[in-house]
């Protein structure tokens, strides 16, 4: 494993922390959800209306209660994941309302797309989880969307997944569904099996929905990503250190709330901070500043002793073109080499989180494979140093017919599934670019994918729960 590198000095980390404490004490953070405000009042924090002014000792104490790492449990234990430490977890994009087809045409995402992306993630060797909210299935009514989405993850793969955090009720639904899958609420309290994404509303606010979700996950001890997206220049200062301080204040406020409700609840320090494109006012994510925010966040998370979330295959491009490739490689490589643990948005994202693309998904899957290999680093054993075989071949020979070669190349070399390494003539026969090859590949993967079987009894129970909730919610 490559040693993760730091982009901030210890003094700089300390400076961000000090600035953050000052912001939390003197500026405060606004929580629109009354039950959350009550929690802070009960814990002796100064509250004015919905704005909470934090005591720094209190924040530091609370954040220290969050675990440094934890295990996320999958229905197939082989797919259990350790979140934290040196580990890197890749998963698909999250929350895009649109699909951009290979030709760049935009359409609304559907539940069928949802299933497809879960299957592609399930089939991938490079993605460790099937993620959550992989697209917004706009053909499903909002009040039952969370059920349909979770069902897709449960039935189409046996990897770990995420659930809805959109309000207390929806969060409770998905927690109960996950409990059925794993054999009860007590089981998942012991062995967390569901995670969710809680986003602040920058600058320095949290809304009702997210706080409701946060409180449900915290009550049941399920992990959550507390994330902030500062658009440097518009919803935060245009200086990166300033924007990082705003982000840090929001994330620490969220983490503090989780630990007040249920000390020891696993949380992940999340950042999707990036910049404002000053020509259009829109968010821009495929850039070096975003990578700096991500890398700094990994380091701040290490400082606070919690796992981190950030980065991904991020781009502002509208199709899986060269721009999509170079921006995504920068952001995924940056996140991975500086120690981000939980990489949401690793695959499929286009146009600053607005769209998912099948082609981009396959390109990112390849990037994830390459970066995954890169961060694994070099092995240094006697055998790997290979003196014996170097001696056997001697000057002027070749290594192609050595047993050492045959044994090692398969584990040492990353084998691309999308990249073209053919001769010119080989390529010319078809002249397919990466986008076109990606189309062939995702269609091929979907055609050949069989979801892992789910126990009939458990499935019946899950079906019944969903049916019951749908009829209740549609009333």
């Amino acid at each position: 494993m490559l040693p993760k590198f730091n982009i901030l000095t210890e003094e700089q980390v300390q400076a961000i922390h000090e600035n953050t404490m000052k912001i939390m004490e003197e500026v405060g953070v606004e929580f629109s959800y009354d039950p959350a405000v009550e929690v802070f009042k009960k814990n002796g924090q100064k509250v004015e209306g919905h704005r909470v002014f934090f005591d720094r000792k209190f924040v530091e104490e609370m954040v220290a209660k969050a675990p440094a790492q934890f295990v996320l449990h999958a229905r197939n234990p082989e797919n259990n994941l350790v979140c934290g430490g040196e580990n890197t977890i890749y998963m698909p994009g999250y929350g895009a309302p649109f699909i951009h087809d290979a030709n760049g045409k935009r359409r609304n995402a559907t539940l069928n797309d949802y299933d497809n992306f879960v299957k592609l993630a399930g089939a991938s060797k490079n993605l460790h989880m099937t993620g959550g909210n992989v697209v917004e299935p706009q053909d499903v009514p909002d009040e039952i969307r969370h059920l349909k989405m979770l069902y897709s993850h449960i039935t189409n793969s046996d990897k770990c997944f995420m659930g809805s955090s959109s309000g207390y009720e929806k969060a409770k639904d998905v927690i109960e569904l996950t409990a059925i899958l794993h054999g009860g609420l007590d089981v998942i309290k012991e062995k967390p099996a569901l995670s969710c994404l809680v986003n602040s509303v920058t600058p320095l606010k949290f809304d009702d929905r997210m706080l409701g979700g946060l409180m449900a996950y915290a009550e049941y001890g399920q992990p959550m990503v507390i994330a902030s997206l500062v658009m440097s220049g518009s919803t935060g200062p245009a200086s990166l250190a300033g924007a990082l301080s705003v982000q840090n204040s929001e994330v620490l406020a969220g983490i503090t709330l989780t630990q007040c409700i249920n000390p020891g609840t696993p949380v992940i320090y999340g950042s999707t901070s990036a910049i404002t494109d000053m020509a259009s006012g829109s968010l821009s994510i495929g850039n070096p500043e975003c990578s700096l925010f991500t890398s700094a966040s990994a380091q701040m998370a290490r400082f606070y002793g919690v796992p981190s979330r950030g980065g991904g295959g991020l781009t502002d491009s509208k199709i899986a073109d060269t721009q999509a490739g170079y921006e995504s490689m920068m952001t995924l490589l940056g996140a991975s080499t500086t120690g981000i643990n939980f990489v949401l948005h690793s695959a499929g994202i286009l146009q600053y989180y607005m769209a998912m693309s099948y082609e981009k998904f396959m390109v990112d899957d390849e990037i994830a494979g390459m970066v995954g290999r890169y961060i694994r680093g070099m092995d240094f054993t006697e055998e790997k140093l290979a003196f014996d075989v170097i001696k056997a071949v001697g000057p002027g020979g070749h290594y192609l017919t050595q047993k050492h070669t045959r044994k090692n190349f398969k584990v040492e070399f990353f084998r691309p599934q999308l990249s073209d390494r053919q001769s010119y003539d080989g390529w010319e026969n078809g002249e397919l670019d990466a986008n076109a090859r990606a189309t062939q590949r995702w269609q091929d993967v979907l055609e050949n994918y069989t979801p892992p079987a789910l126990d009939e009894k458990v499935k019946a129970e899950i079906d019944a729960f969903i049916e019951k909730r749908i009829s209740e919610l549609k009333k």
Partner: protein
Amino acid sequence: MSAIFDEIREAVIDGDEDLAIELAERVIEEKLDLVEAIEKGYISGIEEVGASWKAGEAFLPDVMMAADAMKSGMSLLEAELARTGGEEHEDKGKIVLGTVEGDIHDIGKNIVGALLTAAGFKVYDIGIDQKAEDFIKKADEVGATVLGASSLLTTTMRSQGELIEYLEEKGIRDKYKVIIGGGPTSKKWSEEIKADGWAETADEAVDLCRELLG
């Protein structure tokens, strides 16, 4: 009896040269059917590796080690066949391979040799830095009609042309098909020197030989 043929087949697939030789010695010792051992053992094994290669399941070291194992074992059986005056095993065609004069690059030629072997051709590799005479001498000795000339340097490409000029001078150009390859070569170059074919990759070289010898 067929058990040993399966063992030979496995030895080739595993690229285990020592075992392939040992098994050939046993076949001779036990006076088993030499042609059957070649076809059901060595050829069958290399064909399987060739098919895996085509399917993208086997890689260069697999094919090359298998080709080495096959060649080493089979050459013993062929020598025995020749000694006992038995019927010769029928191959898909004979090819003489070499790197041209002035050039000591080995690896590309070796890869082509292995893949041609895996495709069922009989390959005679005369090595590096070979003059035109050396190609002809070997071809006549073994009855090969295809000459494969490799060149990796822009400065030695000329030797590929010289090989063809040599054949013309001797008035034996029609007796042979000359194919060329190597990094700096191109289809255009092969046309310029009037070669019979050019291949950019080892796979293409196999296709080319199938065309010429098919």
